[in-house]
Each structure stands twice: as structure tokens, then as C-alpha cells.
């Protein structure tokens, strides 16, 4: 155990090394780089390409330069368009990088050989030279960053720009150049972290996600905005992981996640940090005033009855009619076309459901979740459990939806403590926890999954039709729910919150509750989609059910279709579906292309492709 703790502390150095770049970019640019881990993995692959660790002399400066130019172009362009765009663009980059690496280097793992050997401290404890070197490197990098920021003139300008870019410009500071320099420094640390990671363990194209999550956990555990807190956070995470590994090798990651979630639940400001802006303040200063105002507003609103219902006057009323016609026509399809067609459409309906839910979350409630796959996976597994207990998987549709709603409600109390990009990554951690936990349950097929019982007795054609109707029903219900939700009082509240949160709060809008309702609804929708997925695939497998690819797809559909419109996800799902069919023969390239399209659309057509086309034509 003592050995595990020592190893864990040293491992914390590696995590702190990962975390400081993330922390720097967030602190200065207010950007959460969701591709952070993937960039580190790129550095490791570059080192493989250039002949090993010693090429770090080339890779690190290369990354610094690349960081500068990336900031001056893509990242700056997305900052100019708002925080949502920065998340979308970096998430898109993450998808692009991961699949590009997959295409170029295959899914096999690589490693950078480093001189090994260890130092014996006592009979039980011996310390690897490499771990020690990485820890020392982390301390040096942290010291260096701190000195750079607090002692140099450029560091002073970086802090000035971070505080107030406009005021800095009025003092003659070329803010974009300064931000580029900060990004260059951050990318240099990313490269160092990637090299250290590659020397420490083997890596594969998909390793970036884990690195991002650990870096993020180290930052939050340590306390936002504190470099030394980050080291402490990394060490806590490292110790948690190595003690977890001591119990059972596969508990390592989940033990780290659990410590992170515990910190989030018990001490959201982190171990060292003071309460910071990124943490949702629990006691809003003007809350009492807001309550008083709200009561006054309510009392007033009660008098004219129509106003209390909060109808949005501009909403088109042809939606229900069009919806009924479309559903009726589509419901007839199994009688008219081959089952191949309806089977394909099932995937479209799943996509449509997911995109509609994500649009509610991000477009209306401002909750950018990249962890909705948690509910897709849980929905699939609830279906499996229902089927294992001898009931028809189709009865699982409502069960899965309700169970996922309950799960979402519980999760919301944890993840709602964070905002913006931190919220996004926290949802991702939760999804990872769900996947890891379920992979440990042998009754559910463990890591390899299990096929869904109870469907073999049904005639294939009939099963295909049932599945199709189930998927259609779920999609139609999802759209109807979204439509009703936005017409209700809560829709008005959400729009108010999106436009001006403080203003809405001061008028008595219960921001937290409105968001929680949306989060629960989205959890239910994704759960139902997961249930449809399980039925249509006839088996449930943890890595695909909990794949972050689900989040990527729902985000992509919403973005290209047009976020915060009801029709956006429908258009997006259809466009995405077409692209998917057209590009699927190209393997991982298709995800690279989709990622690039998503990045391009979120920068050049943030209102969606159709709107952009319409504007151009006009």
C-alpha cells in the first residue's frame, strides 16, 4: 500500500503536466480545449515518427509554434463567436485528430522506449527513474510557467489580456499576439506531457480522451486557477488510481473518477482553491431579492390568466399538423417498402431523437454536455435488464426512459456544480464512470456485452416493423416534447436565461430548476434512444453503447442543421445521415471529414447550413 501511494504521488506529476496546459488555456483564453488530450497524443506519435524521445527537442518547439498559429486562426475565430463555439470547435478537432491518427497509425498501441530502471528506497518501495524524472519535469514546468507569468513583461501582458482584453488594447497591447504566445506556451507543455505519457505507458489514437479527463480532474480536484493546486490535484488523482489498481487493475480509472466526483460533491471549489467563477455559486448573493421579485412577478402574472401560461407568440402553429401527417405517412412505410429501408430509417430516428435532445440542452438551456452517451448506454442496459427478467424488450422503452430520467436527475446535482466547459467534461467523466462500472458486472456481459434475449421468437419481418414503429414513436415523442417544452412557461424562462442569465435571475426565473428539467428530459430521450438502439442491434456492448461518438453525432446534427431551432436537428439528422451513407465506405476518414465539416460550420455558419445558404442566396 505504501508503495502504491508513492507511485501514485509520482504519477500525479504526469497528470499535473497534462493539466497545466489545460489550466493555462482556460485561465487566459477562457477556452476549454476538448482536444487537449488528443494534441498530447499527437506529440507522442510525432516522437515515434521522428525516432523516439530524443526528438522532443524538435517536437516541443514545433508544438509551441503550432499552438501560436492555431490560436491566431481557429481558436481566435471561435472565441470571437462565443464560448459554445470554442467547445464545438475543440470537440470537432478532437474527433478529427483521433480518427486521423487511427487512419495513419492504425489502432495498435505504440510506445516510446525510455531508459528504465528504478531506485530502491526500502524493501517494499522502489521508485522508477522515469516516474521520478517525469515528476521532476512537472515541477520544473510548473515553476517555469509561474515565473514566466509573474516575473516577465510578456507574462504581465498575458495576465492583463486575461483580465480585460479591451482595456489591454487601449494600453497598446496587441492582444491576439499575446494570446498566441500564451497558447504557444500551453502547447509546449502539452507536447512535454505527451512525450512523458508516451515514455510512461503505451498509447493509441483513442488515448487522448483519458488524458483530457485526468487533466481536467487534476485541475478540479486541486482547485481552479491554481498551478500548485493542480499538482496537488494530480497527486490525489494519482494516489487514488494506484490504490484502485492495487485492489484490482481495472479499478484504477474508476477510483480516480470516484474521487473526482466526491470532491465535486463535497468541495466543489477544490482542495486548495477559493470559490471561483467557474464553479456555480450555491448562494447567489441576490437570491433573496430575486425570490421577492419573483413572488411579486408571479402575483402579477396570475391576474391575466393567459400571460401565466407564457405562450411564445411567434411560434408557428403548423408544427402539430405537419408532425401528425409526417408520422402517419412514416408509420405506413413498413407496409410499403422492404425492411432494409425501414431498418436504415431506425438509425435516422435514433439520430433525430438524440439531436433533438442535445439541441434542447445546448441550444436552449446552455448546457453543453458531451456526456449524453451515459444515458444512451444506460438506456440500452436498462433494456437488457428488463429483457433478462423475461419481459418484452419493447416494454423496456418507457422503463428505460424513466430510469434514465431518474439517473439524470441524480447526476444533475453533481454536474450542475460546474459551468461551461467544465460542465461538459464532468458529464464526460460521468459517462466514463457508467461505462467502467457496467463493464464490471458479469451478469450484464461484462466488457464484451450480451445479446438481448426475448426477441428470437418474433418473426423477423414483424420484429423489423415493431422496431421501426418503436423508433418512430420515440423520435416523434421527443420532437413533441421539445415543442411542448418550448411553448410552455419553462421555454420562455430558458430563452430568458440564455439571453441574460443574471437578468433572468433577478426577475425571478428559477434558472437551476429550468435547466434541471431540460437535463432530465434529455436524459429520458437519450435513454429511450439507447433502448431503441439495443433492440435494433439485438445486443448491448459497453464500448459502443457508451461511445463518445454518440455525443459527437448529436452535436454534429444540431450544429449543421442549426442550433436553437426546432427544425435544426431534423435537417441536421437528415444531412448527417446522407453524409454517413455517402462516406461510410471510407472508414475513419468519414469521421475526419465530419469533424472538419462540424468545425467549419460552427465557425462560418453558426446558425446552421440551411440558414447560411439562404443568407448567401439572398
Amino acid at each position, binding site marked *: 500500500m505504501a508503495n502504491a501511494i508513492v507511485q501514485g504521488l509520482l504519477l500525479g506529476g504526469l497528470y499535473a503536466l497534462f493539466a497545466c496546459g489545460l489550466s493555462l488555456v482556460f485561465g487566459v483564453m477562457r477556452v476549454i480545449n476538448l482536444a487537449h488530450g488528443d494534441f498530447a497524443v499527437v506529440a507522442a506519435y510525432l516522437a515515434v515518427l521522428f525516432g523516439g524521445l530524443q526528438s522532443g527537442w524538435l517536437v516541443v518547439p514545433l508544438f509551441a509554434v503550432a499552438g501560436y498559429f492555431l490560436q491566431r486562426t481557429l481558436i481566435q475565430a471561435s472565441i470571437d463567436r462565443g464560448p459554445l463555439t470554442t467547445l464545438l470547435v475543440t470537440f470537432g478537432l478532437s474527433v478529427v485528430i483521433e480518427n486521423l491518427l487511427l487512419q495513419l497509425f492504425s489502432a495498435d498501441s505504440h510506445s516510446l522506449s525510455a531508459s528504465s530502471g528504478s531506485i530502491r528506497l526500502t524493501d517494499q518501495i522502489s521508485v522508477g527513474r522515469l516516474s521520478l524524472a517525469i515528476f521532476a519535469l512537472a515541477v520544473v514546468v510548473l515553476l517555469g510557467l509561474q515565473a514566466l507569468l509573474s516575473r516577465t*513583461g510578456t507574462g*504581465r*501582458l498575458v*495576465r*492583463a489580456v*486575461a*483580465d*480585460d482584453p*479591451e*482595456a*489591454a*488594447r*487601449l*494600453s*497598446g*497591447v*496587441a*492582444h491576439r499576439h499575446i494570446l498566441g504566445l500564451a497558447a504557444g506556451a500551453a502547447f509546449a507543455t502539452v507536447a512535454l506531457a505527451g512525450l512523458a505519457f508516451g515514455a510512461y505507458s503505451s498509447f493509441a489514437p483513442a488515448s487522448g480522451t483519458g488524458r483530457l479527463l485526468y487533466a481536467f480532474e487534476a485541475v478540479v480536484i486541486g482547485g481552479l486557477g491554481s498551478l500548485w493546486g493542480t499538482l496537488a490535484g494530480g497527486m490525489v488523482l494519482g494516489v487514488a488510481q494506484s490504490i484502485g489498481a492495487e485492489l484490482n487493475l481495472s479499478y484504477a480509472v474508476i477510483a480516480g473518477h470516484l474521487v473526482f466526483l466526491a470532491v465535486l460533491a463535497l468541495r466543489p471549489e477544490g482542495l486548495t482553491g477559493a470559490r471561483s467563477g467557474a464553479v456555480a455559486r450555491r448562494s447567489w448573493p441576490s437570491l433573496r431579492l430575486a425570490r421577492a421579485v419573483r413572488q411579486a412577478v408571479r402575483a402579477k402574472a396570475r391576474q391575466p390568466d393567459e400571460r401565466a401560461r407564457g405562450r411564445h407568440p411567434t411560434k408557428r402553429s403548423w408544427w402539430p399538423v405537419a408532425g401528425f401527417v409526417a408520422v402517419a405517412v412514416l408509420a405506413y412505410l413498413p407496409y410499403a417498402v422492404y425492411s432494409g429501408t425501414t431498418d436504415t430509417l431506425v438509425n435516422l430516428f435514433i439520430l433525430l431523437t438524440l439531436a433533438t435532445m442535445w439541441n434542447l440542452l445546448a441550444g436552449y438551456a446552455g448546457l453543453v454536455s458531451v456526456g449524453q452517451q451515459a444515458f444512451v448506454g444506460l438506456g440500452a442496459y436498462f433494456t437488457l435488464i428488463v429483457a433478462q427478467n423475461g419481459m418484452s424488450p419493447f416494454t423496456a422503452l418507457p422503463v428505460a426512459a424513466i430510469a434514465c430520467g431518474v439517473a439524470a436527475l441524480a447526476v444533475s446535482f453533481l454536474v450542475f456544480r460546474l459551468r461551461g466547459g467544465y460542465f461538459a467534461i464532468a458529464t464526460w467523466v460521468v459517462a466514463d464512470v457508467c461505462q467502467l462500472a457496467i463493464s464490471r458486472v458479469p451478469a450484464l456481459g461484462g466488457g464484451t456485452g450480451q445479446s438481448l434475449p426475448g426477441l428470437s421468437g418474433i418473426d423477423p419481418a414483424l420484429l423489423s416493423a415493431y422496431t421501426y414503429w418503436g423508433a418512430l414513436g420515440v423520435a416523434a415523442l421527443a420532437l413533441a416534447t421539445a415543442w411542448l417544452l418550448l411553448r410552455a412557461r419553462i421555454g420562455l424562462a430558458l430563452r430568458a436565461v440564455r439571453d441574460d442569465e443574471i437578468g433572468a435571475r433577478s426577475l425571478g426565473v428559477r434558472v437551476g430548476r429550468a435547466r434541471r428539467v431540460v437535463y432530465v428530459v434529455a436524459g429520458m430521450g437519450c435513454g429511450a434512444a439507447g433502448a431503441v438502439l439495443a433492440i435494433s442491434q439485438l445486443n448491448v456492448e459497453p464500448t459502443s453503447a457508451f461511445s463518445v461518438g454518440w455525443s459527437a453525432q448529436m452535436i454534429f446534427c444540431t450544429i449543421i442543421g442549426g442550433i436553437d431551432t426546432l427544425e435544426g436537428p431534423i435537417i441536421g439528422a437528415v444531412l448527417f445521415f446522407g453524409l454517413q451513407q455517402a462516406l461510410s465506405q471510407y472508414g475513419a476518414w468519414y469521421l475526419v471529414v465530419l469533424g472538419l465539416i462540424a468545425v467549419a460550420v460552427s465557425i462560418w455558419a453558426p446558425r446552421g447550413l440551411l440558414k447560411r445558404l439562404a443568407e448567401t442566396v439572398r
Partner: protein
Amino acid sequence: MSLRVEGLSVDHGQLRVVHEVSLAVSPGEVHAIIGANGAGKSTLLRAIAGLHPPASGKVLLDDVDITREPPERRVPRGLAMVPEGRRLFPSLTVRENLLVGAHKARPGPWTLEKIYELFAWMPERRDQKAAQLSGGEQQAVAIGRALIANPSVLLLDELSLGLAPIVVSQLYALLPSLLRTGIAVLLVEQDVSQAVRVATWVQCLLEGRTTLEGRPSDLTPDQILAAYFGLTYG
């Protein structure tokens, strides 16, 4: 002639906020722009500083057209602004705030030491974070941060905003010593009596248009009142 603005129009989205305003400020002059809320004063000043690209018109500094230059390039040319609401860098110390202002400084009379002389309280509190200062102290640091760049034209946006009257008059009492260094001052002020007291030229804006201008001594209070509120006396 230090600063010349010719027919400047500025839009906020589709709304025109400043309509073809012209003005000129020479060294040693204090040009005050007065007007009610929403008259376009601050927008005009932001456009002159380069923060808000104008729709049409010209901004000339020492006869060089700087209309299309970003604010950070106007500073080394000799144009500095004290923004509305002070806008210090809260996590930086007093000294660091001044040093940021100095990093593109032109040669001239103002140095860190001179700023410390101008505000006697500052040296001993130079290592305090700007966020810990009072409003008046912050405004002093903001003035120091602009002065240290040695501008030939100093823009002051709503110096009196949120400050006690006594602090405001202390700050305005500094103006003569600034002017002696050959600086030109363009200021925006809601407090008309304060503006009229210090200015060598007063220009009144109403809904983005110049309604009155002249030497303070040539203007009657009634004229100013009428121009300020757009009243016409029968």
C-alpha cells in the same frame, strides 16, 4: 493640430448612434463633450480610440489618417484613453497596471516615477492588487496607466462615473498640470458644470448630433440646457 475628427458616423448594429460629428483638439486644450444619456458621447470616444469601427468619416492624428487602425496601434502614435468604468486589470498590482500602460510608451515626460509623484499615495501601495483599491484610487491608476504611454492626445471617458464629488474635483484639479506638458485632452462628461469649468471648448451632443459648441465663456446656461435636452424656447 493634434486630433481631428471629420464627419464621423458610428452605428450600433442597424442604429446610427453618431451622425457626422466633427471636432478638433490642439495641444493645451481641453475639449469637453457633454450630452444626456444615450447621446452617443461614449460611442464617439470609443470610435476615436479605435474600439468601435466607424461607418464613415475620418479620424486624423497629427494629420495621419488612423480611422482604420486598431486601438493597440494608436497608442504608440500618441492616442491613449482612460475607458469608462476605469477597467483596470484587477489581478495585477498597481505597479503592474502602470507597466502594462508603459510597454508601448513613446518618449516623453511621463515615467513610473512621475506618475508616483503625481499621485503621492501610490508608491507605498504599488504592490496592492488593483481590485483592492477604492473607486477614486482606481481612477487615478487608470489615468496613470494612460499617461505613462506619453500620449499627445488623452481621451477621458466619464471620469466622474461612480465617484464622490470631492474625488472628482481632485481628479479634475490635475488637468492643468497635464496640459502644461503639451497634451491635448478630449473628455466626455455627464456632469455639465464640471465640464464647463475645466474645458476650453464645449461640444454638446443630442441623439448623436452636435447641437451646440463654443467656448464656455460664450455659452449661456440656457443655451446649454436647450442643447442638452433638445428644448426650443419660443
